[in-house]
């Protein structure tokens, strides 16, 4: 019974079982597919495009920060048509800066990282890893992608709205967002679509993981990645509804003149506000927003930790250290993430009783993160490390996430937050978590699973050419932000050169912007590698990394229905270097004594 090996050379999928017989046409196969793998790839490709778009927006902003009021190179003229740059001087306008800032945040979070981590990797890898033929609700899965795409299109189209795209930050605090121009309405509609898509996805993930696991795949035999996706799905399911409701309330405030978030007696510009009766509370929005947005940061990080776990185990050639501890830690993180949200609101005037509670919960939630990181690092002890590209990205996730996580502590203690709140320190902190943290993990995942999805392995030289300058660029961008923030410079500024403290840190800002250019250039080898490998890369066997988990027991790429024979699980996910065995790995689908 070693079917894992039987098919290692038969990667063309003629599957007698679990295969529906009428072949779907081109549209059904590649566009309106219900196959989790096709949907996963659709999600992945779309979100990679959005990541590039969001990054390009930031390059434009970084240009302005380093060279205030100078013409934006190359696309400065084009952007004038959208009202982002000045038609004459081609320099970035303050409203353009605010638009790009709000859209950068929104796109990176909701259209880039989450759809890649969950929609892409979750969809593609998770059913394979648990030995399922597909997701529990394939049509729902397809719908989730198309609603997501609609949300993305609405977001991008909002640049054409009267007055341009939303300018109130990704946080969209009222009253500013309520009195904003129509781009904000587009933003809200886009958000409602994106949230709906995530909710559809999360139900599907939870059902699939609980009901479609292969025979023998008990919960404790699930790969860490699957655990990450499971906790993530619960977070999405439970945290998004309050934001969806809040989004609808804000939409009503804007289009139907309700006053959920509008206090009475406002005076804007040169006249009193009369279109709202008032009596609402702008802080209510902040509570609803952060009730989602804090769990959302764990949505951004848990799938990344899942990927890092897989890549580490595979390339250390040993079991993950403290697998159960890791799982308990992320479950605990998931629970705790619902009761820390108001640490984003210490400066709103909350009382000390409440802030004490949120400081305490925030300190508590840092403990499982410390444990997770410690487990990962100890996993390297006694290993036999294989330094391929996915491993380089996965290893560098560790110190980068450490910086991001540690710098959260000063922000979590309200007294220190008095100085640091809403400064560049915050930007440095969360970017270390999501950019050199999560994005590196996602790159690790792309290099790791590319052979599964295409049957071809990405070029190692180009991979390293991608990795090293990316690592340098990321740190050049985000490292200096701690100094800028500690100096007291606030975020979301079109330029900081008018401020004394801004002048004292402007050289850091320039340095950061150079880093952004380095990071941009570093993506060229990746893009070349991605397409050239997909079209003509080196072909590999179905298990090129000598990995243990079930996805590697399917052909590469797996056919519709995934496995040639139904897999049965015999052992845990990371049986590497088991003493007394001939090979240094025991696939989950083979009995150990084989």
């Amino acid at each position: 019974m070693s079917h894992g090996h039987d098919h290692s050379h038969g990667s063309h999928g003629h599957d007698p079982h679990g295969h529906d017989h009428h072949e779907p046409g081109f549209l059904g196969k590649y566009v309106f597919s219900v196959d989790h793998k096709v949907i996963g790839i659709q999600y992945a490709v779309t979100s990679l495009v959005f990541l590039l778009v969001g990054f390009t927006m930031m390059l434009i902003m970084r240009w302005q920060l380093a060279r205030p009021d100078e013409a934006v190179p190359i696309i400065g003229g084009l952007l004038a048509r959208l009202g982002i740059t000045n038609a004459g001087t081609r320099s970035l306008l303050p409203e353009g800066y605010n638009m790009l800032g709000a859209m950068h945040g929104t796109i990176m979070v909701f259209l880039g990282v989450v759809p890649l981590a969950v929609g892409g990797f979750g969809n593609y890898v998770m059913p394979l890893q648990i030995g399922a033929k597909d997701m529990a609700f394939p049509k729902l899965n397809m719908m989730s992608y198309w609603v997501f795409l609609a949300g993305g299109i609405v977001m991008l189209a909002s640049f054409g709205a009267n007055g341009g795209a939303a300018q109130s930050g990704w946080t969209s605090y009222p009253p500013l967002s309520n009195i904003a121009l129509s781009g904000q309405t587009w933003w809200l509609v886009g958000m409602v679509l994106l949230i709906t898509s995530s909710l559809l996805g999360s139900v599907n993930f939870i059902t699939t993981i609980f009901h479609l696991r292969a025979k023998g795949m008990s919960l404790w035999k699930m790969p860490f990645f699957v655990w990450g996706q499971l906790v993530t799905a619960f977070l999405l399911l439970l945290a998004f509804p309050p934001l969806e409701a809040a989004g609808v309330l804000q939409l009503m405030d804007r289009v139907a003149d309700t006053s959920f978030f509008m206090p009475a007696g406002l005076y804007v510009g040169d006249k009193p506000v009369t279109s709202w009766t008032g009596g609402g509370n702008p802080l209510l929005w902040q509570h609803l927003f952060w009730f989602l947005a804090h769990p959302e940061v764990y949505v951004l990080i848990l799938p990344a930790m899942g990927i890092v776990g897989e890549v580490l185990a595979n390339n250390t050639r040993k079991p993950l250290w403290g697998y159960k501890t890791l799982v308990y830690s992320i479950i605990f993180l998931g629970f705790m993430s619902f009761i820390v949200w108001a640490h984003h609101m210490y400066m709103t005037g909350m009382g000390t009783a409440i802030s004490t509670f949120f400081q305490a919960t925030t300190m508590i939630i840092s403990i499982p993160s410390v444990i997770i990181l410690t487990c990962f690092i100890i996993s390297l002890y006694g290993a036999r490390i294989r330094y391929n590209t996915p491993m380089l990205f996965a290893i560098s996730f560790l110190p980068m996430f450490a910086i991001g996580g540690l710098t959260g502590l000063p922000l979590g203690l309200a007294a220190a937050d008095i100085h640091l709140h809403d400064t560049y320190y915050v930007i440095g902190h969360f970017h270390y978590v999501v950019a050199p943290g999560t994005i590196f993990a996602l790159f690790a995942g792309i290099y790791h699973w590319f052979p599964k999805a295409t049957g071809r392995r990405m070029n190692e030289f180009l991979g390293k050419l991608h990795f090293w300058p990316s690592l340098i660029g990321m740190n050049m961008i985000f490292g200096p932000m701690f100094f800028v923030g500690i100096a007291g410079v606030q975020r979301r500024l079109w330029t900081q050169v008018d401020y004394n403290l801004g002048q004292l840190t402007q050289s850091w800002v320039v340095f950061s912007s150079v880093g952004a250019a380095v990071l941009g250039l570093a993506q060229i080898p990746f893009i070349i590698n991605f397409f050239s490998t997909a079209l003509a890369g080196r072909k590999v066997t179905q298990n090129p990394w000598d990995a243990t988990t079930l996805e590697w027991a399917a052909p590469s790429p797996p056919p519709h229905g995934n496995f040639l024979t139904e897999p049965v699980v015999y052992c845990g996910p990371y049986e590497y270097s088991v003493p007394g065995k001939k090979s240094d790995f025991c696939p989950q689908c083979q009995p150990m004594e084989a």
Partner: protein
Amino acid sequence: MSLLAQTTWWLPPDFSEHGWQIDRLINWLHYFMAVLFVGWGVFLAYCMTRFTWKRVSMAHYTPVKAKASKVIEVAVIIFEVILLVVFSMPVLAKYKNEPPTPADNPFEVHVVAQQFAWNIHYPGPDGIFGKRDIKFVKDATNPIGLDRDGDPNAKDDIVSNNQMPLPAGRHIIVKVTSKDVIHSFNIPMLRVKQDAVPGIEIPVWFKVKEGTTSDAIREQMARTVVVPAAGESTTAYELWCRNNLTFDEVKGADGQVVLKKGAEPGKDHLEALRAAGVKELRVGPRDPVEIHCTQLCGLTHYKMRGQVLIQSQADFDKWYEEKAKGTGDFIED
């Protein structure tokens, strides 16, 4: 290069009485973070170089007994509890729960934020704030809607735009609110931050260290700016001169005055400075203690900048009485 030499790496100077406690917490936190990070880093580096493919023939299957991980976790918990209970909660409690008592003779000021300015409202010598109502708001002359005609208490009130004179050495209570959107009232060099939320008036209190004056701070923050030769980049020069004033009169070789004392040098003066053979300028910030708005509040959020003018109580009183006489005045910056 002169850019890098004058760049700051850490906290800005602090002129408040409570600020050191915030700074102490921030410093301790960073020591603690550094220890953890270096600890992890050293172990990681060791593993990465010791357990390579070449140096190891087979990985260890059985998990190591890592007492260290328990030790780290317990140490982290203990340290965090100490920081929270000893160094954060009491500081915050004082900052939030213990306003100055009448016995402290505090001085109260109201701040009404708006897009994109700080309106500072002083009660005047009578110590009573006049009524505000939006129906009286006139942008140019009465931005906060002070009832100058109806309320006798408003007669001597002083309203100032972006300029916030304050006495050193006295307890100050600032009640912060907003006319339109959410702003955040932040004076980094006094370690004060409070969101300005429309519809709510939220107090913060602090005390500027006795003996502090804005003039002295300007002197303390003084810097030397190199005058770029013709053909050299002027970026650094322009940056470092922006909103900065000269301390001394600058004369050329011929004795002609190129820049007066207290003038703001800029691009326009470059040629004259070069012609006069001036190589360096000593300048200091015009408004050394600035008010930042730390909440995104709209189009020109980046320009929402105010100034705290720290004076001795005597100088402040002089200013205060002077201004209060000019009833109905609105002081623009």
